[in-house]
């Protein structure tokens, strides 16, 4: 079981919890604004862009090649950007806070 917080662009903060699936699915299931997941989670649309807290980035890890390329579609990309359809919900991310990029 992992509890995480999404901070949205309108400065809303949503705490959600889940134990499986992707972080994108968890966000969509909880109606987190700015996480669309239009492609259903196959890293094809770049509509689930989040910023990972720099302190957590080593734990989360960097994007693989396809994801890193897809992130280039978004002008708001930073070194802490990830597409959250590529992050698994697990105890490893428990307690983390993610900022929604759009």
């Amino acid at each position, binding site marked *: 079981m992992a509890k995480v917080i999404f901070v949205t662009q309108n400065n809303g903060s949503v705490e959600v919890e889940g134990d499986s699936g992707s972080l994108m699915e968890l966000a*969509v299931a909880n*109606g987190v*604004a700015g996480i669309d997941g239009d*492609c*259903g989670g*196959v*890293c*094809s*649309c770049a509509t689930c862009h989040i910023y990972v807290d720099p302190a957590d980035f080593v734990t989360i890890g960097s994007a693989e090649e396809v994801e890193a*390329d897809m992130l280039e579609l978004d002008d708001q990309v930073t070194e802490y950007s990830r597409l959250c359809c590529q992050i698994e919900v697990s105890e490893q991310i428990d307690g983390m806070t993610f900022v929604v990029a759009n």
Partner: protein
Amino acid sequence: MQFPAEEFHSNNGAVVIIGASHAGVNFAFHLRQQGWAGCITLIERDPELPYHRPPLSKKTLQSAELKSTPLKAEKAYSDNNIDLKLGYEVTTVNQSAKQITLNDGQCLHYNKLILATGCRAFIPPVLGLEVIDPLNNRSIFTMRTYADTTAIKAALNNSSDKQVVIIGGGYIGLESAASLIAMGAKVTVIEKQPKILSRVTSAVMSDFLTELHLSKGVELLTDKDVIEVKQLSHQYPHQPPHQYQHKQVVVCSDGSEYCADFIIVGVGVRLNTQLALEAGVDVEQGIKVNEACQTSNEDIFAIGDCTQQFSSLYQRWIRLESVQNAVDQAKIAAQFLTGKLPQGEPVQQTVPWFWSDQYNCKLQIVGLSEGYDELLVKQESAQQFSVWYFKADKLLCVEAVNYAKAYVLGTQAIKQNLLVDKAALQSRDALSKETLFLAVSN
């Protein structure tokens, strides 16, 4: 486009949306987010909580645990005060009374009506295919709804030979083939044209995908016209009667016959325009809409696969069957209805994009290749390449296989109207923004 008077965007009044797939659902949520205060009713004949369609032929079919991928959580509809009516059919639209009727006799009034009616799988006029009742027929399927996927999965599990014939070598047929192969089926794909995907792609991509499917064990037959589907009842000796002892035989015009436990028909779609016609709005290849997705009736809008819209990017009327188009049109229509589209400026042109996943190949497409006069292939390896379609110097489309970088650069070039250096595509150097884009073209 004429922007209507201020009172048009009252942000109030009853909005009725017919169709709750990608377009209808996204529209409902965007409309609420944009501040619409009135009722939003979303009507859908499919009883399932609205779901992503693209995974049906891929993840949904293959996953051990059969479940759909919901577009939104069930709770999100009530949280946003969206009245979701699943399992209802709209029987009539009365545009003068601004009313629709449901199959249970309920009448609903609307101030704005949104047609997000999409399309349905086309069943070609072939002997033996005339009556496909997905609820009762356990041998002939289409691939359009969650119920279709569920039925196909059950048929595969219940068949001992796992022999499948897919009629149609388009994206639906090929994705289904890839999934079924992964599930241990023996798959035959029968395509009428000399090449698969010939309507939508070039010989380069068609040949690549042909080789891919052949290498995975698909029997891929082209230039074959199916003329009849026969049912063969075979009594196996020493076995109890079983419903899947019926075999289907697909007969082609050249006399060849292919045996199957079940058949998937994937030969394209027909648009659901009946309600639009009944409402009296202009329908040609699709429901005609302006940049704001408004039909010829100012209170009726149409979004998604069922529409036909003028593309300023491609300078022609286009009709798209895609998630991107459904979502983008939903956003624009919601912004227009709430008065959020910048007035006096052209509506921002969206660029079409598509994807398909087959085996371990990720195909990503941006733009439309129709009308190209030159294509260049940028190849990184046998499994990683991209096809760049030009008309003179204008980049029309990029198709990328396992090559997200090419897809992203292609998207940027088309969106920003950048001039692409063809020499950079022909060189052996890795693709980069710095070498690929020459300057902003006019």
